[in-house]
């Protein structure tokens, strides 16, 4: 039941990943946890989409990856935001804001008339 909650996440996955990485390098597992925690368990990242997205963003040059040791001393692949990624994040944040504000305005008006 909780599982079905995040179907609309797909389109914004990139934005969420970039934002998470702006706080510092992290591996895929960590990104999953962080998004889930910060969103108060509302947003859940699917593994099947996260890793392809990460690799795609790496190809785009928005993030770079390197191997590092995790908190529990295992080798993990850490992703780090690049300069291009920072720009991309800013752009996507702006887009998101515009979108949500627009949606909010529409909802406000529709609510007023109803």
């Amino acid at each position, binding site marked *: 039941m909780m599982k079905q909650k995040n179907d609309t996440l797909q389109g914004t996955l990139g934005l969420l990943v970039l934002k998470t990485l702006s706080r510092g390098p992290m*591996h*895929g*597992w960590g990104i*999953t946890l962080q998004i889930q925690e910060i969103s108060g368990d509302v947003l859940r990242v*699917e*593994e*099947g989409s996260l*890793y*392809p997205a990460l*690799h*795609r963003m790496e*190809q*785009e*040059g928005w993030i770079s990856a390197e*191997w590092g040791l*995790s908190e529990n001393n*295992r*080798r*993990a*692949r850490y992703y780090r935001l690049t300069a291009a990624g920072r720009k991309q994040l800013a752009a996507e944040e702006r887009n998101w804001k515009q979108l949500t504000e627009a949606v909010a305005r529409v909802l406000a008006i529709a609510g007023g008339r109803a």
Partner: protein
Amino acid sequence: MGLLRRVGNLFRYKKLNAELEEELQYHLAMREQLNVKEGMPEMEARKNARRRFGNATQLKETMREIDLFTLPETGWQDTRFAARMLMKHPGFSVTAILVLGLGIGVNTALFTVYRAFLMRGIDADHRSEMVNVDRTNYAGKFDPMFSFLDYEEFRDRVRSFSGLIAATGDEVALTGVDEGPSLGRPMGGVLARVAGFNLPRLIGGGAEFVTTLIVSDNYFSTLGVGALRGRVFEADDAHDASAPAEVLISGNYWQRKFREDPAVVGKNVKLNGIVFTIVGITPKDFMGTNINVPDFWMPLREQVLLHPGSTLLKDREDACCRIYGRLARGVSVGEARAEMDLLAEQLSAQHMTYSDASKPMSIQISPGSPFGRELDINLKFAIVLIMCAVGMVLLIACANLAGLQLARSAARRKEIGVRASLGASRGRLFRQLLTECALLGLIAGGVSLLMTWGILHVTVVEISATLPAEWGAFALHVAPDMQIFAYVFVISLVAGVLYGLTPALESSKADLVSALKEESSHFASLIGRHSMRGVFITIQVAVCLVLMIAGGLLIRSSMRVLEMETG
């Protein structure tokens, strides 16, 4: 830069795979750990972690495609796999390659010959301006021959042509060359030697027959062709009666007989016992208005030397020559014809009353061709039949290939099903099959090129080497015509690929489970395929039957063509 890295990734494929595996493993392990911590039993925890990833193979495949520069890598992989598949079924592969190769090869060879030999115009500069001048006599019969006197009138009075030339062929005996160069010539081809049917070509005393094209003085200047060495005949030559008669030697005969000795110009040869001086050499393979390369060229005014007492130059009834013209700039065929018709009517009054030429007739002007129109009409039927027959060979080849591919598609359904269920995307399967067909086609193409070359070599080179030299040299460029090859190749490739892709198309319709089960459950589709095969067999039988009938007709009609008097 992404691109560069992807190409770079190609070279560290293995490492990349391992890294991908490790990255995903880490995530799985962490999830499992978390699950256990949250109170799941260990087995359940592991299963849950895996389930979250969905189809792991498919995920890895997707990610590999992201990481790698997809096309070249999978392309190369596909090619290798295709090669393996073809090797694994040598029976299918060899049959398909031979069938396709033969179909393409025969077609390319025949159309090449057709184009090189029959579609060739007159060998001249700006050949599109050249036309044949013939006439239809009072009885409606086609007649390409004119007398020399008529020709002279036409040449001098008709303004529609920038040049009007006449030519007639002859065979003469070459009895001597001063300072005899080595007369040995490499005779015949392999076929001739093996079959042992060299025709006798030497006549008594080491003489030999040579072909001679006897032409008007303006022949070369009108065609716009110069001599390789020496000079050609000039229209305005001041003919010194006391000077020795002149001939031109063809480049081909010069090469064959004189081993390209440049000193041949100026030498004397004895033709029919009369001394002629070689004044020039024509370019190799130059055929003029002839269907092949003659050994010598001679002006019409000298014809009387070869045949003492000949009235060719004086007798208006001696229809000796074919006439060809170069249309003057801006003159249409219709205008030229009208002018010629008018003059022909005047000339008919000068002919003897018993002559056909004295009766009403009309002039015909057709695009320049060494084959007269009459021969064209007779040959046309045979040519159409040959072309149809050859086209059907291609059709049969394609149908056979389609049949083979269909039969194999049934066998491959399972393989495709397995691969699809293991996470191969539809596009990937499609690409794979496409690569296989393309590889098959490419190999068949290579085979067919060899086959084309072989067929052309045997039919043209060897047979013309076997023909008596008196017939002249067939100067055909018998390299496979690449344009035709490309055309035929594409047709058969498209046919092959279309049917090669059926398994992929079918798999997109069928659900995987039933594909994985044995065929028996797929009764309906089995019937469908069978009826498809039935259609192919029916078509093939029909085409073979037509081919047999056409072949029979072809033999009959070509026999008649051979019997025909070609004048």
